[in-house]
């Protein structure tokens, strides 16, 4: 005869409604954790996409994500020749806004050399860029589909491949085009501006500029050592992949990360208080029954068991409701919500602990009940 179960069954509708309410709250907590994780994952996605060990950028900058970085296009050849470097590729990054089918699109344009490091990590649909101009690989989050044609600057590109989850730290979906196309898009002057420059006796814009050179090092080589070598060239800076990720998480998204982290902590505290209040109220409503149980000889463990089991059931059902809810709606969020199993397990353990501690309030109230309360009206 499980008293907790029987009491829940007796007030099933109200209990389930309470669980759903708690579930919604825990769902919000999970969503915040997911958004927090998503922010970090998004911030790292583009930096991890080239799958490289070293970032060569403009000297004294922390580019190309945290700061602007411009280096000559021929830097790649120099880096490729450094001992220990297995492969190197030039890369550019820029954000553009365009229109497609009357819809405004903000795109994070990545220019790369198709045969070198820097391209999309994998193609989910279609193929990689095979021509040197006018083809693009777009992330699915852009809403573009294969064969779509989209105008960027003065050039129209055709979507030949699709990637997944490739967005920058601001949540803008990425598109990949060839380096020459990207350079033209980023550095080429519009014809009127070019004419002004020519009239002034200056040449056109220098197109062969890149934002960074990415490099993979040989298995027996150290990225740190190569970075030190590169830094000796006064006009270049070098950041290891680990350093780049640290810049992204500690600098670029740090404030947003801390803001969401703090909000998530607050939500967890609010959830804990609400759980405690629910359990306390549930116990207070049963004081007469608890007094009767004590009077007829029920030991403390029976009463404690009833309260703790109900608290656990509340937490478990609430947590499951929240998890089911958030797993079903997470893809509808405009930014990525990343819920990894370990996050869910940790939150589950926190909810478990909160329920256990919160039930202490109810248990304390129950143990203080005088059995004599059962006597009299």
């Amino acid at each position, binding site marked *: 005869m499980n008293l907790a179960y029987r009491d829940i069954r007796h007030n099933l509708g109200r209990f389930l409604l309470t669980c759903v309410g708690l579930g919604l709250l825990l769902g919000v907590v999970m969503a915040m954790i997911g958004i927090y994780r998503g922010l970090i994952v998004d911030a790292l996605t583009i930096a991890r996409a080239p799958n490289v060990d070293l970032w060569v950028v403009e000297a004294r900058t922390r580019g190309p994500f945290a700061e602007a970085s411009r280096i000559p296009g021929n830097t790649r050849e120099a880096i490729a020749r450094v001992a220990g470097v297995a492969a190197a590729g030039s890369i550019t990054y820029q954000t553009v806004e365009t229109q497609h089918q009357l819809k405004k699109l903000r795109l994070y344009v990545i220019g790369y050399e198709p045969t070198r490091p820097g391209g999309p990590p994998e193609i989910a649909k279609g193929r990689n860029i095979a021509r040197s101009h006018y083809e693009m690989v777009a992330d699915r989050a852009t809403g573009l589909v294969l064969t779509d044609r989209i105008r960027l600057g003065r050039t129209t590109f055709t979507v030949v491949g699709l990637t997944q989850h490739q967005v920058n730290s601001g949540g803008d979906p990425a598109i990949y085009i060839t380096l020459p196309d990207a350079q033209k898009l980023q550095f080429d002057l519009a014809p009127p501006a070019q004419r002004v420059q020519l009239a002034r006796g200056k040449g056109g814009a220098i197109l062969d500029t890149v934002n960074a050179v990415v490099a993979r090092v040989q298995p027996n080589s150290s990225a740190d050592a190569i970075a030190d070598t590169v830094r000796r060239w006064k006009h270049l800076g070098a950041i290891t992949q680990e350093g780049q990720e640290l810049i992204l998480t500690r600098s670029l998204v740090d404030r947003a990360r801390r803001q969401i982290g703090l909000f998530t902590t607050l939500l967890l505290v609010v959830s804990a208080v609400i759980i405690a209040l629910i359990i306390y109220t549930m116990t207070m409503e049963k004081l007469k*029954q608890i007094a009767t149980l*004590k*009077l007829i000889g029920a030991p403390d463990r029976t009463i404690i068991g009833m309260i703790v089991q109900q608290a656990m059931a509340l937490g478990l059902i609430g947590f499951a409701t929240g998890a089911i809810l958030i797993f079903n709606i997470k893809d509808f969020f405009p930014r990525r919500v990343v819920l990894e199993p370990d996050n869910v397990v940790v939150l589950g353990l926190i909810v478990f602990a909160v329920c256990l501690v919160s039930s202490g309030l109810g248990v304390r109230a129950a143990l203080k009940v005088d059995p004599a309360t059962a006597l009299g009206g």
Partner: protein
Amino acid sequence: MVASTKGQPLVHLNRISKHFGEGETRVDALRNVSINVYPQQVIALLGPSGSGKTTLLNVIGCILDPSSGSMELDGEKVIEDGAWLRGDLRQLRLDKIGFIFQFHNLLPFLDATDNVAIVLKLTGVDIGRARKRAIELLDYLEVGHRKNAMPSQLSGGEAQRVAIARALANSPRIILADEPTAALDSKRAGIVMDLMRKLAMEQDAAIIAVTHDEKIFDRFDHIFELRDGRLESDAATDTPAVEKTST
């Protein structure tokens, strides 16, 4: 019929006193109360509000410490000089005492059978046997047909019978009743009292009831009246101030 006063009393109170507070705020709820209650006796505690009836019931029910005096329950000395001699009062209640309340106090989330069976379950009887015994008791009290009903589905009389079954489930020798018929009409009150008396006879138990219900006074062997914490009779010698005899 007056129950026998021969043999050993089931409840023996010797100069039990209980006060609350000290100094100017001191309230003497019980003053040197001595009572003997014998098997098969049905006793009423009467008195105006604040006279100490409930305090006395709480002391006998092992839920309130007396300030002084001694008490024996079913031949076992449980209080000496105002101090409990047993640590586990809950077990003492479970072993020796059954409670019947004014408003039945059935657990609303258990059906009639389990409301009775829970007492047996608490003593370690397996749930199957506990339910079997509970149904037997409910049948005996003529509410067996309501064994699966929840308390909210029972009438006042049915609920009080289930409460009586619960009080008797563990075959206690002392049954304490707090206004057991207050929520019942006179006909049902009479039936319940007759039932309690019958059970007291059959189980060789004693029933002590706090009541204001004049319509059932004739169902008691003795009526002890309390006033300002004092017993208006020398109960230890079984000469109550008011004594009614049922026929």
